[in-house]
Structure formats: C-alpha cells, structure tokens
C-alpha cells in the first residue's frame, strides 16, 4: 500500500499525494485523510496532487467524495496543483469539482485556506 504522509501545519492538514492511487489503495488513503482530519484543531485540509499526471474517473470521484466528507465535518478543503492534463481529463469526465477551491501551489493554497478559515470564524 502506498504510504500516505499527512502533515499538520497548525490548524491545517496538508496531504501530498505522491503517486497514482488505484482502487483499494485510493479508498484507504481517503479514509486516512478523513480520520486524520477528525480532530477539532484541524480547520482546513490541503490535498496536493501536483505529482499526478493522470487522474482517472475513480480517483476524480474519490477526491470529490473526500472533499464532500471533509466539508460535512466543517473543514475547509483546497485542491492544490492540478496539472493542465489532469484538469482537461477531469473536465472531459464531467468532474468539474465546482464546489472545491483550487490553487496552483501549496503557498497560495495555504494562504487561501487561512483566508477561508478566518471568514468562517468571523
């Protein structure tokens, strides 16, 4: 199983996905993210997929599901580093992920996420 490392940066959980995940490995990774985020200190999650060149419909839908689940837990979610090819592929699959915020890179993602968290706490 692919090792999934989650990093805690203050109230933000950073999850870099380093390699292509298939089926069970992907689902396990999804569960792990949700479990890690199930902590009242965590306010937002940044999922970094900049290392992925390919995202199939399964992983695309799984990302949507994870985001949805995290949102339900009251966490903000941001998808980081979707590659152009991946973006085109997702759109072709009809996975617009319209309710998920996106960012080019981790820096701007963290910034955006903090803004979103601040908005919430206002």
């Amino acid at each position, binding site marked *: 199983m692919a090792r999934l490392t989650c990093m805690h940066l203050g109230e933000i959980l950073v999850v870099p996905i380093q390699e292509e995940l298939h089926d069970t490995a992907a689902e396990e990774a999804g569960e792990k993210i949700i479990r890690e985020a199930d902590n009242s200190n965590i306010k937002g999650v940044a999922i970094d997929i900049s290392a992925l060149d390919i995202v199939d419909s399964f992983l695309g839908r799984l990302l949507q599901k994870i985001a949805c689940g995290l949102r339900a837990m009251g966490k903000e979610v941001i998808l980081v580093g*979707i*590659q*152009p090819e991946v*973006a*085109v592929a*997702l759109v072709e699959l009809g996975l*617009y992920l319209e309710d998920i915020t996106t*960012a*080019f890179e981790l820096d701007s*993602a963290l910034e955006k996420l903090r803004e979103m968290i601040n908005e919430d706490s206002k």
Partner: protein
Amino acid sequence: MAKKNDKKEIERLRRENEEYKKLIEEMSEGFAYLEEDLTFSFTNPACDSLFGVPEGGLMGRKLEDFLSSEAAKDVRKKIRTKKKNKKNVFEMEIKTGDDKRGYLLIRSNSQLDEKGRFAGSFVFFYDITKRVRMEEELIFERGLLDSLLSTIPDHIYYKDKESRFIKVSKSLAEWFGMKSMDELMGKSDFDFFTEEHAKPAYEDEQEIMKTGNPIEGKVEKETHPDGRITWVSTTKVARYDKKGNIIGILGISRDVTEKRFWEIEREEKMEAQKEELIALSTPVIDVWEGVLTVPILGALDSERASRVSEHLLTQIVRKRAGIAIIDISGISAVDSAVADRLIRTAKAVRLVGAEAILTGVGVEIAQTIADLGIDMGGLKTMSTLKDGLRYVISRKKMSVEEEKNG
C-alpha cells in the same frame, strides 16, 4: 478326310489372318514395318494419321523424310540395333506431312536375318505431342517464375498453413542475410524478426487463411533482433489448391523504409508547424500581474479548441496567473460543440487554480448559448474585453488596498 481337314485349317488361318489385320487396322496406336533402310512397307491407318499423310501415303517413303537431319542419324542408330527382344523405346520429334511438329514415342522390335544382321523392324508409334507440349509449357512457366523470383527486388514469398516459408525470392533471402533461397525453407518470421513484428504478421496471415480476404498495401514496421527497424508495404493473399481449399499464403513486400522515414520526418515537421501555428494564433498575453488574456481568433474547430485549451492551461500554470481572460470576440461562429469546448476550457482553468472570465460574448453567441441551453456553470462572462479588464483591475485594486490597510 485329310483334304477336308486341310480346307478347314486353311479357312481357320484365313479367318485368323483377317482378324489380325482388322485388329491392326483398328488399333489407335500407329503400327508399321520398316525395311532394312527404314522404308515403310506396311502401315496401319493410325500410323498414317500420326505422320499426317493420307491413308497408305507412307508406303515407300523413308522414316528420315519426317526427321531433321540430326534426329535422323540418331533415330537410325537406335532402330537399326541388332539386339533382339530388348526394350527399344525412345522419343523423337517429327515434322508431319501437313507440316506440323509432333512428338512420337517409338517402340521398335528389330528383325534380324539368319546371319544376324538387321533386316527391318516392327514399330509402334504413340502420339505424345500433348505431353511434350505440356512439359515445354511447364518448363517455360518455371523459367518465368524463376526469373521473377531471382530478379525482382520486391520480396516474394510462399508460405504454408503454419506461415513457414516454402519458397522465397532471392531478394528476400538476401534481405535476411542468407546465401540461397533454400536456407529459408521451413523457417518463419519468428526466426528473423522480433515478436513485435512477427506476431501481428502471423496473426494477419492466419486471418487471411481463415477468411480468404487479402491484405493490400499494408505498411508494416519490421523490427529486427539487432534493433534495426525497416518498413515494408505488404500485399498478402491466400493460396488455394485445385479443389479451392486454402493451403497457404502468397505475399509480396516492398521495402519502403526510406520513404517511411522521410514521411515520419515530414509528419514531425508538420506537427511542429501545427504547434507553432497554434501558439501564434493563440497568443497568451500577460496584461497585468497574474492576469493572462487569450484572444481567440478565426474558426474554432474542436481539434483547435482542444489545443488552445491545452496551450492556455500550460501557460496559466507556468505563469501562476490567478486570472485568465478568454476573449472570444474574434470568433466567427459558435456552434454547440465549440461553446461546449469553451466552457470546458474555462472549467479546466478553474481546476488548475485560476479564475476564468469569458469576454466578447456578443449578441449572436449569447443567443446560441441560450438556444442550446448550455449550462454556464457559474462561469463569469462579460460582453467586451474592456469590461473584463475593468473588472479585473478593480479587483486587483481592492486586493492592493486591502493589503495596504491590512
């Protein structure tokens, strides 16, 4: 009593004689008696017709009259043999009385006089013209085939049902680095190519033998064990036996390696030019810090649209542009496929982390979009590029002021 018996005996002999004569006359084989100097002194009708003369026309003529001078010498020697009761059978070519060429098989039975000298011969003639002609034809055709196989530079090959070579052209043997055509017998493509080529070729051949449908002018990539790559244009057909059963493959391949490499080079060049053209026709302009503008001009077919969208997305990610303005005021017409493509592009832009604004949506295009019931999916649109820029600038100002205040 004795007289009566004699009479009976004479009658019997006469009848027997008649029967033999009738038998000889009605025989389909030619029969003749040749004198010591090979003059015909008895012939049956079949013999006359073999030599192309009217009935009885051979009487008094010599066999040599129907032979060429060289053949005459040879034939005379063969017939005038003193060996009795020995099978004396040979073939000869004759020129018949009606000036045709024919071939006869001769069976000669020498008759010797009491001193053991050649006295004449009973000879049977059989017409073998048809057989000889067929043989000649076969030899001729064989020659045609051989010259084809040994001179034509195209690779010609006959294969059996298991796709093993049974006959190949010299050019193919040389192509495989063999000295003679025979060295290839029983071998197959698997002995000369890597699996990458041998397997699909084998499958093609089995398919042809299953269906009888030929392959014509198929360009195949041949991969050799030493890493060499060659290209051939191949035509393969099924071979049939007399009963119409498929018994193998006949193929002809032409080396088109040079042409193919030239084509590949040209394709690559064209591809590069296409890329260039796309980049040229779709300039991505840095109008502001983190703001890109893409004016799309001309007709946008779906191939170009997808290239434009790739190009744009790559530029956005490379330049870390937060906002991309896609200006479509220069587009001549928008149909549903193009509108769909544009909206997908805008959505992909959002996925990579930027915001997309569609500007230049004129009345016509707006109507098309409305008519087609396309879901704009929260995409920001502005009627002119000016409006788009104004919107972006005001937002930038805001954030700058926010920063100052913050």
